[in-house]
């Protein structure tokens, strides 16, 4: 059996604000992610799931415990782990094409190839014709597609997604979810997807890691492999049972997070 691609062992993280007391965001998190697997990190607000994502991405330093990517500890952010943020983080002064090209420019590819690659990914996410638009001219859904194209373009092995559809309206979100799945099926990568939406997690992921309220711990890992091509999947009994099962796990934590927050 191949060793897991991503190994997270005993990771804790303390958040130290400039003023006020330090807060333990994550406590002793352990998780193995296999190559090409789609894993969802699910939990109530404040449980540290985004923090865990940033640790994997190398944006925050791992102080306690270790995170290994293919056996090697991470040192810094890098193009092997592409990240997609909830609020798109597009460079507003660059066009769609300019944004997508940014990562490609760093790869040292010849100009022709860069342009071609950029175009193919813009087409992949369905933004053909908008290459020369600026982010401020686009809707939320289109901006997120640009962000996706940008990250996919430099072909990271691992995709880190931080509630990428959280800022979109319900209909767009639904569309983006199925598009993401079809893109993933075509260009399979390891995906770690952070969300607080149970249904989204069950729909998209192979496995759902449920996290507890702060300090975050992996409470349970549930298998959620279904035949996602079924258009009526959201009404499928096995699917809804699974959603219920996981929702029960999350609800307790959500309540804890609420009441804990009140202090």
């Amino acid at each position: 059996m191949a060793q897991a691609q991503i190994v997270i062992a005993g990771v804790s993280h303390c958040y130290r604000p400039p003023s006020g007391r330090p807060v333990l965001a994550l406590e002793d998190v352990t998780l193995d992610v296999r190559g090409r697997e789609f894993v969802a990190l699910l939990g109530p607000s404040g449980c540290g799931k985004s923090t865990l994502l940033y640790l994997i991405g190398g944006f925050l330093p791992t102080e306690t415990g270790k995170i290994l990517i293919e056996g090697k500890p991470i040192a810094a952010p890098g193009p092997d782990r592409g990240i997609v943020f909830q609020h798109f983080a597009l460079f507003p002064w660059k066009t769609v094409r300019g944004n997508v090209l940014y990562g490609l420019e760093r790869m040292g590819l010849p100009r022709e190839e860069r342009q071609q690659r950029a175009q193919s990914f813009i087409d992949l996410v369905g933004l053909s014709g908008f290459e020369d638009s600026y982010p401020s001219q686009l809707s939320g859904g289109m901006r997120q597609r640009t962000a996706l194209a940008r990250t996919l373009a430099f072909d990271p092995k691992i995709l880190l997604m931080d509630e990428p559809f959280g800022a979109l309206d319900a209909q767009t979100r639904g569309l983006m979810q199925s598009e993401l799945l079809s893109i993933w099926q075509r260009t399979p990568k390891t995906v770690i997807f952070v969300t607080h939406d149970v249904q989204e997690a069950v729909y998209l992921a192979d496995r759902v890691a449920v996290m507890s309220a702060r300090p975050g711990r992996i409470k349970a890992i549930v298998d959620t492999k279904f035949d996602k091509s079924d258009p009526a999947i959201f009404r499928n009994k096995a699917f809804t049972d699974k959603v219920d099962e996981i929702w029960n796990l999350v609800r307790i934590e959500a309540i804890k997070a609420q009441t804990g927050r009140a202090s």
Partner: protein
Amino acid sequence: MPGGPLAELAREPSAYRWLRTAGWGFARVVSLVALAVAWELAARSGAFTPYMLPALSAVLERIWSDLIAGDLVVNTGETLYRAFAGFLIGAVAGIALGMGISRNRFTHWFFDPIISVGFPMPKIAFLPVVMLWLGVYDMSKITMIAVEAIFPVVTATIVGIRGVERELLWSARNMGATERELLWQIALPAALPQIITGLQVALPIALIVAIVTEMFMGGYGLGGAMNTASRFADSRGVFAGIVEIAVIGYALVKGVMLVRRRLLLWHQEALAPSTV
């Protein structure tokens, strides 16, 4: 999917916008004309002596003759040259200093009190000192202008760079950008709107200071000309100067706004609503 940018379709009905801008333009003209008429009538009414309030027509005549004689052009040129020279020096130094302060802890520690204390000071009080050190010609004027202009630019640069979204920097790092590239390719463009606001504040300041230094030191330039007029009790000349300077000040501010709009095209478009 429709080809081409969405903005054309989604913009507010252009007729509306045009009407509103036209409406304001019209109001401006009406107010200005009303003011001009009031001035002329007041001057002619005999309530004021021609010394206290020369008629608008006389003042305009004077401006015209200055223009023909070439004096107006020379003076305007001198003042604008000094103002722009000082402004550019202040702008470049301000941005550079702002970037340095954002990056380097020591620079930040060293300059922070200087900026914070220096900002509200009437730095014009140092003009005699600058004159003592640098003489009575352009050098001291331009230095004074630069010193005054640098403050809003530094502050704006610092605020702008500090305000760059963390996730923008992280995305760039994710794609392999080095520290240098982060500063020049990401932080600076992201801070640009704020920096330009700082420049927009600095330019009128440069003009004000240019005029004051000229009034103090005399010689050529719009300020110097007004000072001379004042010395010779030439009230038409004084009023002519006010009108000229008002026009230039207005043109400058409008011009800068246009430049801002062009540079920040990508930012401006955020005002246009989008669909889909």
